[in-house]
């Protein structure tokens, strides 16, 4: 959403702001990946010369990290191959979501926007139909997940792709089984709320002047001035908009 607004800035500010935002985003993504993948090590006494974490926000991002006791010794380095693999996955996901949102806004289609929400934020669960009951010969639910058709998947043949769809990648994002089928009922509601929210926030940002988006310019140390006024509303702000949509239907 922010990228959409930045794109409307006059050249060359638009490209420079978007590039800056992407750079900072992926630096943060890499930082968070390394934090999650760092192997644990034996406790050691605290080193008074070691500075505390510069980013308490990042430490609280994941529940598992928040609830775990703080490590007493600096953890090992995350495996570079895993970091690179995850970065590529996130790059594909970011590009896919960006294009999908742009397409939806360009077409002015709420249905396309809702579909983008389903694919990217709801894991495209149920893409090949909903498993409402156990298969006659299967005592356990069949595992199935949607795979991203881009990147390496695009070069796979049908059999390989089907095998990949039945492999648990450990992400926790997969189709709901028959015992969880009720969860699908929330999907249309969630897509409606998120579509209304995105529409509302895009309109809000569009009404903000270029000067307020770009700030005070060259003054060092004043880059954050006026940013607080641009803060995104909470998703609950879409409640009124959803109500209007439902009343009008």
């Amino acid at each position, binding site marked *: 959403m*922010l990228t959409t607004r930045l794109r409307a800035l006059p050249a*060359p*500010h638009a490209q*420079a*702001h*978007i*590039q*800056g*935002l992407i*750079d*900072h*985003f992926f630096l*943060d993504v890499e930082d968070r990946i390394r934090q999650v993948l760092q192997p644990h090590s034996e406790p050691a006494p605290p080193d008074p010369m070691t500075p505390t974490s510069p980013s308490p*926000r990042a430490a*609280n*991002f994941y*529940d598992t990290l928040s609830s775990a006791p703080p490590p007493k010794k600096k953890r090992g380095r995350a495996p570079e191959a895993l970091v690179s693999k995850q970065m590529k996955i996130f790059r594909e996901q970011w590009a896919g979501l960006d294009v999908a949102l742009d397409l939806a806004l360009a077409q002015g289609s709420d249905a396309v926007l809702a579909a983008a929400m389903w694919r990217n934020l709801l894991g495209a669960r149920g893409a090949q139909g909903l498993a*409402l009951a156990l298969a006659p010969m299967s005592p356990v639910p069949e595992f199935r997940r949607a795979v991203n058709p881009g990147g390496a998947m695009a070069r796979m043949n049908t059999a390989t792709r089907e095998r990949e769809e039945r492999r648990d990648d450990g992400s926790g994002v997969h189709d709901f089984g028959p015992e*969880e*089928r*009720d*969860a699908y*009922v*929330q999907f249309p*509601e*969630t897509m*409606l*709320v*998120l579509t209304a929210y995105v529409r509302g926030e895009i309109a809000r940002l569009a009404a903000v002047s270029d000067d307020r988006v*770009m*700030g005070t*310019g*060259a003054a*060092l140390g004043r*880059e*954050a001035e006026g*940013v*607080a006024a*641009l*803060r*995104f509303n*909470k*998703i*609950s702000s*879409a*409640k009124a908009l*959803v109500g209007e949509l439902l009343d009008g239907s």
Partner: protein
Amino acid sequence: MGYGSSRQIAARRALALYEQLCAGRAEEDRRFWAEGAHGFFAPSSSTPYSLPLNETGDDPFSSGQQSVISLQRFSLGSM
């Protein structure tokens, strides 16, 4: 040094935008991501099922409560 170039100025502004607008955004709405959107829709006699509020009976999106409860489900009966 290039600190006054439009590209550098934009990069510094983008950092402020990312830090204050984007980085903590998922945390701010963690109740929504944990519980879904059913708090937006009041129970209606015209629907065949009822949509519960959270465990305390509060609207999960206007409450200041920080803890995250598990996703609530409601039965569809036989399908």
